[in-house]
């Protein structure tokens, strides 16, 4: 936008609530999106709730009728379910910690000037554009394959015995792969946020005697808080739904060692054809997502205020 627009004192343009007629027009413009999303969110939800109290198996026509809370009981007492819940938490939490923590440090690093910064930045954000099935296979076969993988070759080169990462440490390896996918996103957003920091603020802090660490702690980090909120929210949306990476690499195994909630429900529904049980899982997943969303949306709402 042009320069003059940037200098408008806010108080001088009192923008009140639009008139009633204009607001009615606004509701009209809003309605297509709202109605579609309403249908999209309510119809499947209602169906999930309905199926979750039914006995329903796609390949077993003898299973019919009302199941009450049986599906839930069966699910909640299933040790696989608890494992999947824990795995989901570890996956989301682990990736968030790694990407936000490392992302912040790397954003500060890439904010410095050094030769070839533009190219280095393009390289570091590239994994964000790689589709999950490709990155999963890439890591599973080309990088971590116990015989042919590059990492195994590197380990042999320094005299170590290669490890079959995906069967020995399936969940940790998945956390690593998914972090690789999402680290670029965190760097991209946080770097932009750092670059928007007023240079005079940093200079004033230096005049006040703040060293690099103090600057990071008292100037950069508070400035980043809003951007970090956004990163956490967007990543959580996608991390709760991680599916392809598991499906392509470990298929949830060995056993259920790397099964998260999404994969558990998928295997109930489309591998065991247990619609009732899968729907009960779906309801649980929705409840969990709502709890997480309630916290996240409160943080986002604060962002919207400003």
């Amino acid at each position, binding site marked *: *936008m*042009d320069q*003059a*627009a940037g*200098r*408008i*004192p806010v*108080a*001088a*343009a*009192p923008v*009140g*609530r639009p*008139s*009633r007629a204009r607001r009615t027009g606004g509701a009209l413009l809003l309605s297509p999106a709202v109605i579609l999303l309403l249908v999209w969110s309510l119809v499947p939800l209602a169906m999930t709730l309905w199926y979750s109290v039914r006995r329903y198996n796609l390949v077993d026509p003898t299973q019919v009728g009302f199941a009450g809370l049986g599906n839930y009981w069966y699910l909640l007492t299933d040790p696989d379910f608890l494992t999947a819940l824990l795995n989901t938490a570890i996956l989301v939490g682990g990736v968030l910690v790694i990407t936000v923590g490392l992302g912040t440090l790397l954003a500060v690093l890439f904010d410095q000037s050094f030769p070839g910064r533009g190219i280095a930045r393009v390289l570091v954000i590239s994994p964000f554009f790689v589709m999950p099935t490709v990155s999963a296979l890439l890591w599973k076969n080309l990088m971590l394959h116990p015989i042919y993988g590059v990492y195994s070759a590197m380990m042999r080169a320094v005299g170590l015995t290669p490890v079959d990462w995906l069967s020995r440490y399936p969940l940790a390896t998945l956390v690593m792969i998914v972090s690789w996918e999402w680290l670029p996103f965190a760097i991209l957003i946080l770097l932009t946020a750092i670059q928007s920091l007023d240079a005079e603020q940093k200079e004033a802090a230096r005049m006040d005697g703040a060293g690099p660490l103090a600057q990071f702690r008292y100037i950069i980090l508070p400035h980043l808080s809003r951007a970090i909120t956004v990163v956490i929210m967007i990543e959580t949306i996608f991390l709760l739904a991680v599916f392809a990476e598991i499906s392509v690499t470990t298929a949830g195994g060995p056993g259920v060692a790397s099964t998260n909630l999404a994969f558990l429900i998928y295997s109930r529904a489309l591998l065991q054809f247990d619609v009732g049980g899968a729907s009960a899982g779906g309801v649980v997943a929705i409840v969990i997502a709502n709890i997480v969303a309630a916290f996240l949306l409160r943080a986002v709402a604060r962002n919207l205020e400003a």
Partner: protein
Amino acid sequence: MATVELRDIRKTYSDEEIIKGVSLTIHDREFVVFVGPSGCGKSTLLRMIAGLEEITAGELLIDGVRANEKGPAERGLAMVFQSYALYPHMNVYRNMEFSLRLAGMPEAERRQRIADVARILQLEPYLDHKPGQLSGGQRQRVAIGRAIVRNPKVFLFDEPLSNLDAALRGQMRVELATLHRRLGATTIYVTHDQVEAMTMADRIVVLRRGVVEQIGTPLDLYHRPRNLFVAQFMGSPAMNVLPAHIVSVTDRTATVTTGPLTVTVPVHAGSLQPGAAVTLGVRPEHIGLDMAGAPQGLVEISERLGAATLLHVRLSDGRQIVVQTGGDNMNAPDSAVGVTPDPAHCHLFDADGVALDHLAAHPLQVGS
């Protein structure tokens, strides 16, 4: 012919009344300035006239016809925004053409009109430029051109000069005044700058917290402010105000004393009795220096403006006043001086801040 009439106009935002009943008639060809401190409601009032804000209560008449329900474009007004609000994706020609094109004016006529306006505003070399390539002053002229080209009944200006630097502001002030004389269009102009108000207005409307404090010609407001607020808001440097009390009263004067000063002001004291607390107001340019008599204060700072010198004098009772003297005044800080307010130019305000009736008519004062 274009008149605008406001009848008890009110604006309420979520239970808070922003404009508390404004009534005003703006005559054909008149240049009226709304002035007041920020938050006084002047911009809101203008936007209600423009049709950008709903009028909560009251009536707006344009050329005698109720316009409350009309959309902004149907009112036949044109507005120049503080930020200019030029369309950044259109060049200067397209910016001016937009409203004409929407109104369905034939191409040839549009071309002719824009050419005329561009000539008046010296914008011919820039017709192909985008707003981003223009200087602040040029953008300002495009915004004015976009308003003129529609040949509106009334021009509305919302702090149009506040984004310009001081020198350009002075120049644009003259250009706007010239343009108004040339086009003779009814104009409503909003500003927080009392210098702009004084220099351009036929009549000034002073607003504070949604209420009209005074309406009058610039010199009316300068010489006969109706209350303390207007007195202090208009004029630069600002009027000195000193708490005082009445010593004696005749039917044509009131004598007051404040610190070392005693002044007999030609006003109607009304019901005020000796001993009553009042406020004495006197502008810096209406105080003389008396080097002969007993000194009444010490010069603390002297601000040399070249043409004039402003002496900040600490009176013996500790209060500070500003005295405007000639540019060649030699008083240095710490020199003792006597000060003599010109009684004919002194103002008295009662405890509520309302001015007491002045009896000395001012020669330049018109109408009222």
